[in-house]
């Protein structure tokens, strides 16, 4: 019997027929009917109207039929939650079935039904199944906890399922362990600092034991989890590595890559001189090469990862360049990746071979591949100096082929070679000039023009050549126009007598006839330079250019380190950090390579260890808070640079200091406000637009909103309600809009808030979900509350209390963040109080306290380096990533602690001053 016939019924009244069949007396008929329903569902027909009839078929002892009904339920339960309740009884009953397969099936399916009412009933059966005698049921229940957490995280915590899950790590069955690890890892991704997994040496040992016994998939879960562990010293790192290395011989490439990830991370902790370090490096290379004999898709994933590994540790694969030679039958995506790695591995030792290969590739058919091969030759020339000559002659050979795109690509790379080795290969310019007519791509044209301009004095007919480009000046792309302008000015400076006319022509074309401001500006600059001081013009225009190096295409080191922590995953395939392509909270937590303790001297000087700190604190200079340094008016309205880095945290808002007019005097209230953002766009809310921000004034919190009616009818009967949130924030009064809102009318309201409402943890912590109702409909939106509105006025702590509690705080709770040019007065106006201050090595240390509305105290140490000119804007990205992480710790940490009793978080912060090229200090609170 075949099932394909179910796909073919396509008559009218089909639903009606199915309904009749589903209610047929004969069991076989009913089964047939359910199969038809599933087939219809697969091809995209809406069969939701059959819900009650299908659910009726659930009470059966036929497992196949039961599975089909369950499949249907999983897809439609959400659309019919009330009906889905009908199925609950059957699920609960099945969870007690003597057959473990049925028990597991029931608990597995229940978790997939995302209906609140059903989840409530799920708790009891799930609790039982987590302790079931049969491992098959337990392993299914473990995954079910993750499912439930996805639906209702709070309930999972309240019901203590996380603890049960943690208990399963010690389970006797390896598959149960593996699934528990997978579930915990996923759950902990949404609580980055909660240490849910509780990775301690004992648990690590359990995981390593299970690693030897569980399925290939289980091994992947465990290895991925292990890679998040930070061994306490090199001994521990080494012993874990020893137990992970056998996985490199696994047939499953994902097991191999995950093992590579663990080893690459822990290598950071091993001393470079040790024998083990070098043995480990040697062991890494063969399995990576073996990955290339797999299926093409896995090869692709492997190559993307090898690309990272080669940049991080080139020594691993430096001998293996041959395996990256392209095969004729490789899929194009494998070819392109191999090419990339070949160039990274190219060195003086193998350059001859590499060049021979590249030349071969340049004659292939795929245009992208050929172009990349030509580019690669240029990169070799720049990377390996000894090969430059040979590369140039290879490129010349390629130009002789007259294949249009090869010629153009070759000219572009030859320009780069000239930039690296000036005055060395001009003899080939004549050949290049022969191909002038065939260049039709802007890149190639610009490259050629640049070459002519740069070597104008050696090209007899340079003026003619450039003039030929000038004819269609306005049709060229901006890039070509700009280059042409510069080239002609260069030519003029070198041969002023013959080219005066030409330069005037180009200057007028650029300044008078062009709409492009860049071009006009450049034109005017040249014009004035040439007319006022030709000598200076010569110095400026013909100055020596910095040489280019091959490092330009390498991945930025901090990003590379982060990607190394993601080996095997999508991030490593895209070469992007997870938050660039993952929505929601999963991507926010950034991973870092572990830091070797013996090398961390720099860090310890910034964050003194506990012992040092005790001494330091006793010597605190407990004077009054110092005067706030005057803030220059230059910074008024300076858009916060950090804002970009905070985007992931604060949504799409840009932090802006709104009270800039008051900045001159630090005594004025400097409450940091957030930019007003559109919370609810009109298109989503039938014409109602709400934008607003949060603020704290005179000890009260407000939600300042602007309602705009962009619809054609009036709006009335406004009401607002908040969902439960982390701080129990609720409106104190109803929404003060009493008159109907007329079309295109705008009204501003300020809604007072307090924090006595019900508390529920949100993700991210400061997320607030709001419902607004009017006579038309109910609309929902959510926004992030800036944390500083929760800082209460009585956040000033007694000095002695501060000292005592500071000492009590366990060091492991420290998290450090970096703030910039923070000023205690400004902090104070935001209810962050400076308790003590002292000066260490020319840096101001501020000790501060603040208190949140829910009674949590936060203590912080702030380090200020006044006017330190060493930090420049260029260092910004690196710092940003640090501050980002610090603040996310800051946001999530207090919540993990007990809410009722005052608990302390030790937030040590370091700040620095950023000096802009103009000397403007940039400034912000967070």
């Amino acid at each position, binding site marked *: 019997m075949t099932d*394909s016939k179910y796909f073919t019924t396509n008559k009218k009244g089909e639903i009606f027929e199915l309904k009749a069949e589903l209610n047929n007396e004969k069991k076989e008929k009913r089964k047939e009917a359910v199969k038809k329903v*599933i*087939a219809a569902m*697969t*091809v995209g*027909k*809406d069969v*939701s109207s059959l819900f009650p009839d299908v659910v009726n078929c659930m009470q059966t*002892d*036929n497992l196949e039929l039961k*599975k*089909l009904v369950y*499949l249907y339920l999983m897809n*439609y339960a959400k*659309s019919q939650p009330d009906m889905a309740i009908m199925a609950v009884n059957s699920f609960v009953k099945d969870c007690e079935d003597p057959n*473990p*397969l049925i028990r597991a099936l029931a608990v597995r399916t229940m978790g*997939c039904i*995302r209906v*609140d009412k059903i989840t409530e009933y799920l708790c009891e059966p799930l609790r039982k199944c987590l302790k079931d005698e*049969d*491992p*098959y049921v337990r*392993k299914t229940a473990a*995954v*079910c906890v993750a499912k439930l957490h996805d639906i209702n995280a709070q309930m999972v915590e309240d019901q203590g399922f996380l603890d049960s899950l943690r208990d399963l790590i010690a389970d006797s*069955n*390896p*598959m149960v362990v593996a*699934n528990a690890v997978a579930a915990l890892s996923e759950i902990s991704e949404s609580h980055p600092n909660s240490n849910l997994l509780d990775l301690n040496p004992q648990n690590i040992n359990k995981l390593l034991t299970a690693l030897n016994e569980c*399925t*290939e*998939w289980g091994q992947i879960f465990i290895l*991925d989890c292990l890679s998040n562990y930070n061994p306490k010293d090199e001994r521990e790192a080494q012993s874990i590595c020893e*137990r992970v290395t*056998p996985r490199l011989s*696994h*047939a*499953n*490439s994902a097991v191999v890559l995950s093992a590579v990830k663990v080893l690459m991370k822990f290598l950071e902790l091993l001393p470079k001189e040790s024998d083990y370090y070098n043995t480990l490096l040697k062991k890494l290379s063969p399995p990576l090469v*073996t990955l290339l004999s797999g299926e093409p*898709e896995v090869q692709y*994933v492997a190559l993307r990862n090898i690309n990272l590994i080669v940049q991080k540790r080139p020594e691993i694969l430096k001998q293996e360049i041959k*395996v990256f*030679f392209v*095969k*004729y039958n490789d899929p194009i995506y494998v070819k392109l990746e191999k090419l990339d790695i070949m160039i990274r591995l190219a060195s003086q030792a193998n350059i001859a071979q590499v060049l*021979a290969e590249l030349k071969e590739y340049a*004659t292939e*058919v795929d245009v992208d591949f050929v172009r990349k091969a030509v580019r690669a030759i240029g990169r070799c020339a720049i990377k390996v100096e000894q090969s430059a000559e040979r590369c140039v002659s290879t490129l010349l050979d390629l130009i002789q082929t007259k*294949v*249009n795109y090869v010629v153009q690509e070759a000219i572009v790379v030859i320009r780069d070679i000239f930039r690296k080795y000036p005055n060395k290969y001009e003899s080939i310019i004549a050949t290049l000039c022969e191909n002038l007519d065939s260049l039709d791509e802007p890149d190639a044209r610009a490259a050629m023009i640049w070459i002519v301009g740069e070597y104008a004095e050696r090209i007899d007919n340079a003026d003619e050549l450039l003039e030929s480009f000038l004819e269609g000046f306005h049709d060229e792309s901006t890039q070509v126009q700009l280059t042409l302008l510069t080239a002609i000015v260069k030519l003029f400076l070198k041969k002023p007598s013959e080219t005066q006319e030409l330069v005037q022509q180009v200057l007028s074309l650029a300044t008078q006839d062009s709409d492009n401001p860049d071009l006009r500006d450049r034109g005017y600059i040249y014009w004035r330079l040439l007319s006022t001081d030709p000598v200076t013009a010569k110095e400026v225009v013909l100055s020596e250019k910095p040489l280019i190096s091959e490092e330009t295409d390498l991945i930025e080191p901090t990003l590379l380190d982060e990607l190394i922590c993601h080996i*095997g*995953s*999508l991030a*490593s395939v895209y070469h992007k950090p997870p938050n660039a*392509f*993952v*929505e929601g909270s999963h991507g926010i937590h950034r991973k870092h390579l572990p830091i070797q303790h013996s090398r961390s001297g720099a860090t310890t000087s910034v964050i003194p260890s506990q012992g040092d700190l005790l001494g330091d604190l006793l010597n605190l200079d407990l004077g009054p808070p110092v005067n706030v340094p005057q803030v220059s008016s230059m910074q008024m309205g300076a858009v916060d640079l950090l804002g970009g880095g905070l985007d992931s945290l604060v949504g799409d808002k840009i932090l802006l200091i709104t009270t800039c007019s008051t900045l001159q005097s630090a005594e004025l209230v400097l409450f940091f406000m957030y930019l007003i953002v559109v919370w609810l766009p009109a298109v989503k809310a039938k014409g109602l637009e709400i934008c607003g921000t949060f603020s704290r004034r005179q000890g009260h919190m407000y939600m300042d909103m602007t309602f705009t009616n962009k619809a054609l009818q009036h709006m009335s009967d406004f009401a607002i309600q908040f969902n439960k949130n982390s701080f129990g924030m609720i409106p104190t009064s109803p929404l003060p809009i009493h008159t109907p809102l007329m079309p295109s009318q705008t009204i501003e309201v300020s809604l007072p808030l307090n924090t006595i409402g019900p508390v529920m943890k949100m993700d991210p912590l400061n997320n607030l979900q709001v*419902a607004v109702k009017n006579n038309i409909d109910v609309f929902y939106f959510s926004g992030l509350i800036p944390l500083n509105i929760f800082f209460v006025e009585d956040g000033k702590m007694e000095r002695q209390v501060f000292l005592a509690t500071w000492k009590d705080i366990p060091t492991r709770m420290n998290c450090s963040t970096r703030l910039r040019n923070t000023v205690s007065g400004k902090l104070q106006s935001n209810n962050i109080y400076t308790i003590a201050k002292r000066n260490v090595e020319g840096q101001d240390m501020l000790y501060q306290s603040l208190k949140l509305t829910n009674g949590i105290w936060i203590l912080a140490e702030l380090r200020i380096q006044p006017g330190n000119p060493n930090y420049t804007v260029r260092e910004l990205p690196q710092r940003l990533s640090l501050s980002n992480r610090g603040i996310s710790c800051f946001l999530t940490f207090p919540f993990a602690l007990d809410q009722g009793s005052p608990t302390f978080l030790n937030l040590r912060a370091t700040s620095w001053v950023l000096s802009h090229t103009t000397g403007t200090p940039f400034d912000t609170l967070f």
Partner: protein
Amino acid sequence: MIGGLFIYNHKGEVLISRVYRDDIGYVQWEGSIRSSSSYLSPPSPPRRNAVDAFRVNVIHARQQVRSPVTNIARTSFFHVKRSNIWLAAVTKQNVNAAMVFEFLYKMCDVMSAYFGKISEENIKNNFVLIYELLDEILDFGYPQNSETGALKTFITQQGIKGQTKEEQSQITSQVTGQIGWRREGIKYRRNELFLDVLESVNLLMSPQGQVLSAHVSGRVVMKSYLSGMPECKFGMNDKIVIDKAGKGGTTDEAVKSGKQSIAIDDCTFHQCVRLSKFDSERSISFIPPDGEYELMRYRTTKDIILPFRVIPLVREVGRTKLEVKVVIKSNFKPSLLAQKIEVRIPTPLNTSGVQVICMKGKAKYKASENAIVWKIKRMAGMKESQISAEIELLPTNDKKKWARPPISMNFEVPFAPSGLKVRYLKVFESKLNYSDHDVIKWVRYIGRSGIYETRC
């Protein structure tokens, strides 16, 4: 983790669609009924139709597929293609990419083990079974036990009504157990095993006869028909093992055995092999699955016996004529016979006619494949054969030069080009009364050409 799995036919029609995670877009069967849950439940995000996105952007894309991983609107699609069937896994998270592909391969294996070739017809015929399998081997997007041996014990499409309690617990312990790939209580009247050493030898040679790259990728495939839970130990002429053993004996022996031993660059094993033991002692011990499976894969690059040498000579005579001469030399013991020899000499696209003369076998110009295909049924070792061809070309204006693809070769030889030899495969089963001597063992070596190319 994996958010959903779709199977499409070549037209892009959905054959199977299973969604595991809410975050990815639904197929139309989400239904149009809006959630009537409470006033304050957060609004659900707009659903993009993931199924359609993949069809439009990948299956129907005009360009050749540039990557097996595609990101469309923050949703990642992994796909593999089997004949004209597309399997796509979808996710919105930062999943382990290698795992997703391995899973898709495994999924194909499982499907083939259940119903043979993966074709539209077979998938439609077995869609209920496929859904049942997908429910079992992927839970919330996490791959679970996907060994066919274990799956076949309880996913049968027959219902499992008549099982006793013991049988049930046996099934669950097998699915979750340490030896998930083999069930207990297997009995054979005749204990027998077959070992196939299958190698593919890959070569890339320059026109001048210089080896640019050469490697052998080999597989040891075992068919075991053994009773009980046999403990097996496999030995081969691995250089590291032999050198270690040789230290004990006289130097003479070491030298002698050293000659026959081979250096293995890297090897990977079926999950039944105890990897920690291999890592520490380099011994390969395992309890095999029943029936056929791949015990190990390996790769060697040193001292490879290249069974054939191809010597090309291409001469362009004017613009409209090419002269090609190719000599092949067999390079192995004269007593052995190579089979299924095929030499493929590419011809330019503007070929108008070809005249071929060959000493042995048959040669033909195949216009549709743009190649001269020269086939020889058998050829003994240490022989030489030659083909010469004259290719007439149509004059063209096309400036683009002919890419001159390499000359490729196919063959099969009855030895292992890497030099690998099976030394022993010992079987121990303590509970049943058969010993290593009672097991009938067969070993066979087959060397095939992988990508065996000579540039011309």
